[in-house]
């Protein structure tokens, strides 16, 4: 019972705190019926300064990203040299390591063997 009363009192308190005064509500209705846009909204739109700052930041970021990509492309030469010698491919790294890739060696044809057994 008390619980419900407390809840109702809270409801009343919240309503009382949030409800606007009559004049403000009337003003809003009159403007809406006249088809006006909220005046404060126009004033609160982002000013030129903010737009300019945002645009400048975007330009700086774009240029930085472009420069970084260019620099990265220029400073990273081909680290592997691939050369072909016949059916063998040789891959050489800048630090001197080398990999040779080729077909597996052909198996030798079987020979004839003579087994000598001592009597």
């Amino acid at each position, binding site marked *: 019972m008390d619980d419900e009363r407390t*809840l109702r009192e809270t409801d009343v308190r919240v309503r009382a705190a949030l409800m*606007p005064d009559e004049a403000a*509500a009337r003003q809003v209705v009159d403007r*809406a019926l006249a088809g006006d846009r909220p005046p404060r909204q126009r004033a*609160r739109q982002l000013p030129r300064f*903010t737009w300019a700052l945002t645009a400048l930041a975007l330009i700086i970021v774009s240029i930085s990203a472009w420069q970084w990509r260019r620099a990265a492309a220029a400073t990273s030469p081909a680290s592997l040299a691939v050369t072909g010698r016949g059916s063998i491919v040789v891959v050489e790294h800048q630090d001197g390591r080398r990999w040779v890739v080729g077909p597996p060696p052909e198996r030798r044809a079987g020979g004839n063997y003579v087994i000598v057994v001592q009597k």
Partner: protein
Amino acid sequence: MLPNRASGFLADVDLDEVARSLAPRLIAYALGRTGCRGTAEDIAQDALTALVRRWRQAGPPESPDAFAFAIAKRRAGRAVLRRALTAPLDVLRGVARDEPGVDRAYEDRADLAMVLTALRRLPRADREALLLRLVGDLAFADIAVLTNTSPAAVKMRISRARRRLAASLPEYFHGRRTHTA
């Protein structure tokens, strides 16, 4: 000729009444969402302007309350987001000092500040449902449509939010009194 809904005369009378009934509820709802009275009035006016336009062009919507509150809900969400995005820029430009936050702007209106603080402690979905019910006076079914949930879930949310709010309001009030005494 007697005026009827189609003639426009009666429709405008109805519109006037509906708008007058909606305005304070919309402002209160938006104030609860944004915490700023100026923004709340803008949101309410936006929602009412859209309702007026719709009413005059295509007749009254099925539920003018739900129509207006759907717009107010969207606008309030955008306003909160916009403020969160522009707050750092405003601080840089020193605008924040001219446009004080809720707590400072309503220092003299302690109850509003307390209510807003208590509302902010609620989970977003609970707060949304509670505001739509408590100050928006919307039906559970309308709130369910607006919040994409079922009426049963809305009832549960509102009940939970009311209990939490009731528990947190006096607690905060007590804390404030003992602090300032």
